[in-house]
């Protein structure tokens, strides 16, 4: 494969300074990036707070027992949907506003349109939260954003959020595909493959998941489509955006090209082919035809091979620069995320087998796995990107490096404790279930695990609050940022 001109990529370090930022300055709309990040972190905190409160229900200490709109079930939707649509989308879009002009050498379609999308998107996330609290959540996992219609009918009862999100996704496609299309006479760098395909996949996935199971396909057929939606949203939007941005930021920060473009090609095309075929593995051992279930199982195992090529590529890129894990916080976030990514995908390889599925499905194992993916991988990558960009966007040196280390260790250890805890709880639940232990005895046995979950959730929330405080103080504390020094642990 020919290597592609990647702006700001090279070995000499000269690119990574004020000179290049000035050159790219009129390409990137810095306030857009900043405000998307600010809202991403805001929603991250509200989502995690909701998750923390929800976990208290299991300790018999739920604070809003008598308030319908803050009830356990509804607040749980806020936890997952704000992370997906409030935090992840904002963080990705913010990073794309920075990365795409630099990758293509062109502005996005319109900065004005950017502000419109920005404003509308925050309102949509808010409308999603309000709608869910009022009881208009849709019964599609990860797609509980209100359709606005009464389930399965055409009677409009609330703002049609789903439709507006779809419009938003199309606008995002116009915004980001325009500069990519203008630069298309060139061969595209791997980041742009992931990003442009990911945007198209988002549009298709979202339409499919929010219409078919709701109005046309019932029961088993609906479940097959919902499985496809759950998986495609993570696998065909979040994952490509995440890897696309990793392919951009890691070489820049490490100041060396990606190790193998051949592996990037394999990684991308295998993802594009196998990932969408995984959907049905969310409903294994169900009444969906077994041939379809086996297809999903084999594709899921194939994805593990894809993942291995990509992870190998990134670790080979870092070969000989292991010190960066110690000295460079963004790299530490990125590679911690990659280790977790490898663990989650290795898990998938085994989960998807029917023997393991029998025990772990329906248990806490699955939320444990989901937390490692959404927080440990994609949120960690977004945090890493923000960590690298924030001083460059604000022109201010980090308010406190010490806080940043506290954030890393609290979040990372909190997540790891939660992961191990929920895995253990899941195996125990599944084994007791199979042994026909009475239901309430299982619940009672899970109690200590739920206590640990709340504790570890508190650690994660505390770490994230430190992050928000650090970002805010950095933005308002003038302290000129030296472009030649990355965030380094000892330099505090």
């Amino acid at each position, binding site marked *: 494969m020919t290597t*592609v001109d990647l702006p700001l990529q090279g070995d000499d370090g000269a690119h990574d300074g004020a000179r290049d930022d000035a050159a790219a300055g009129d390409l990137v709309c810095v306030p857009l990036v900043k405000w998307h990040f600010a809202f991403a972190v805001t929603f991250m905190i509200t989502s995690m707070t909701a998750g923390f409160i929800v976990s208290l229900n299991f300790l018999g200490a739920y604070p809003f027992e008598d308030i319908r709109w803050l009830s356990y079930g509804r607040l749980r939707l806020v936890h997952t949907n704000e992370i997906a649509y409030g935090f992840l989308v904002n963080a990705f879009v913010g990073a794309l506003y920075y990365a795409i002009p630099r990758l293509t050498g062109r502005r996005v379609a319109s900065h004005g349109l950017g502000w419109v999308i920005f404003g509308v998107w925050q309102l949509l996330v808010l409308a999603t939260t309000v709608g869910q609290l009022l009881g208009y959540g849709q019964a599609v996992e990860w797609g509980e954003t209100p359709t606005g219609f009464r*389930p399965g009918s055409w009677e409009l009862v609330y703002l049609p959020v789903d439709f507006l999100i779809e419009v938003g996704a199309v606008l995002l496609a116009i915004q980001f595909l325009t500069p990519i299309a203008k630069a298309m006479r060139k061969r595209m760098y791997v980041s742009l493959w992931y990003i442009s395909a990911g945007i198209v996949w988002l549009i298709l996935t979202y339409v499919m998941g929010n219409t078919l199971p709701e109005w046309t396909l019932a029961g*088993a057929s609906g479940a097959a489509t*919902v499985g496809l939606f759950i998986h*495609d949203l993570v696998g065909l939007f979040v994952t490509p955006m995440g890897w696309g941005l990793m392919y951009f930021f890691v070489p820049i920060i490490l100041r060396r090209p990606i190790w193998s473009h051949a592996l990037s090609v394999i990684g991308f095309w295998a993802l594009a082919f196998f990932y969408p075929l995984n959907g049905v593995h969310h409903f294994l051992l169900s009444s969906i035809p077994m041939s379809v279930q086996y297809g999903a199982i084999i594709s899921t195992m194939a994805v593990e091979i894809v993942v291995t090529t990509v992870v190998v590529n990134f670790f080979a890129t870092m070969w000989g620069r292991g010190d960066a894990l110690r000295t460079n916080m963004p790299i530490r976030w990125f590679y911690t995320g990659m280790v977790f990514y490898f663990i989650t995908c290795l898990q998938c390889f085994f989960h998807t087998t029917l023997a393991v599925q029998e025990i772990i499905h*329906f248990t806490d194992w699955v939320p444990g796995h989901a937390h490692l993916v959404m927080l440990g991988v994609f949120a960690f990558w977004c945090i890493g990107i923000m960590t690298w960009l924030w001083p460059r966007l604000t022109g201010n040196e980090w308010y406190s490096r010490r806080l940043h280390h506290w954030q890393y260790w609290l979040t990372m250890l909190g997540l790891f404790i939660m992961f191990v805890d929920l895995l253990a709880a899941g195996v125990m639940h599944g084994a007791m279930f199979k042994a026909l232990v009475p239901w309430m005895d299982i619940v009672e046995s899970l109690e200590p695990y739920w206590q640990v979950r709340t504790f570890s959730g508190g650690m994660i929330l505390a770490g994230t609050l430190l992050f928000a405080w650090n970002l805010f103080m950095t933005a308002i504390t003038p302290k000129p940022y030296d472009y030649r020094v990355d965030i380094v642990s000892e330099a505090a």
Partner: protein
Amino acid sequence: MDRMSSIILVAGLGCFAFAFVLSGVYPWAITDAKVPTATIAELAQDVPVEFKELKDAYPVSFSERYARAGEVHTARELTLQPELTPGDDAWRDNYAQALREGRDLYISEVCWHCHSQYVRPVANEAQRFGPVQLADHDNNELQRPQLWGTRRVGPDLTHEGRRRSNDWHVAHFWNPDDVSPGSVMPRYPWLFRQGWQVRRRIDPAKADRARLPADRSYPYPGLWSSKAEAEAALEDIRANLPSSLAADAERLFVAESSGPTGEALSLIAYLQWLGTWTPPHLEEDA
């Protein structure tokens, strides 16, 4: 392989469409496409006694909720007033309304996040919950959107219908811990309304014999929104007491209480329906 057109057309559209056909269209084509999806009206053809009992037990909430509540009469009412007609058509309409609203509430309160609705052929699930769920049983309008769920914080509800009494469900929504100690299910106080009830204090002599507290009282069906309505109901009951119970007339009184809302009745009707429907083409096997 690395130009925009191939990325968007082959990866973006092509791979997506291929997977959609294989894991979306194909399973539909070989299963649900062969039998028309049953409508809620079809599901509501046989009105179960559990739904009719809701009218006996909670007549006020029932009449306020259902469009044709005035046209239907329960077995108990027909015994007392043989000149009435049961109103079978109206029963079906009310039941269809209850099923739909109950399902909507099941979604709205996000019950489906903690309760699954499919029994797998492994892990002794059939012993715990009942027969393994077939695709045909889910090919109905109440499963659109599908409510299989992916987590069991609480037990599977595929065969929940007719397993427990309506009263059990009412008590359970009021406080799950009362009926299944140790439960982590939240309370649902908003499924209850305040009102006025007619109650009858126990005969002191009988209370003494049964070692019950002398102030023990039992409610008559009906939870009225105002005290005046409850008092009118009390007069009505008093006027119609059979001579054998004449002594009870003095022990009737009106008290504040709470009971399930019409919305709660729909949810209970939906839960009592779960697993009771057999698709017509499977009825011979069943």
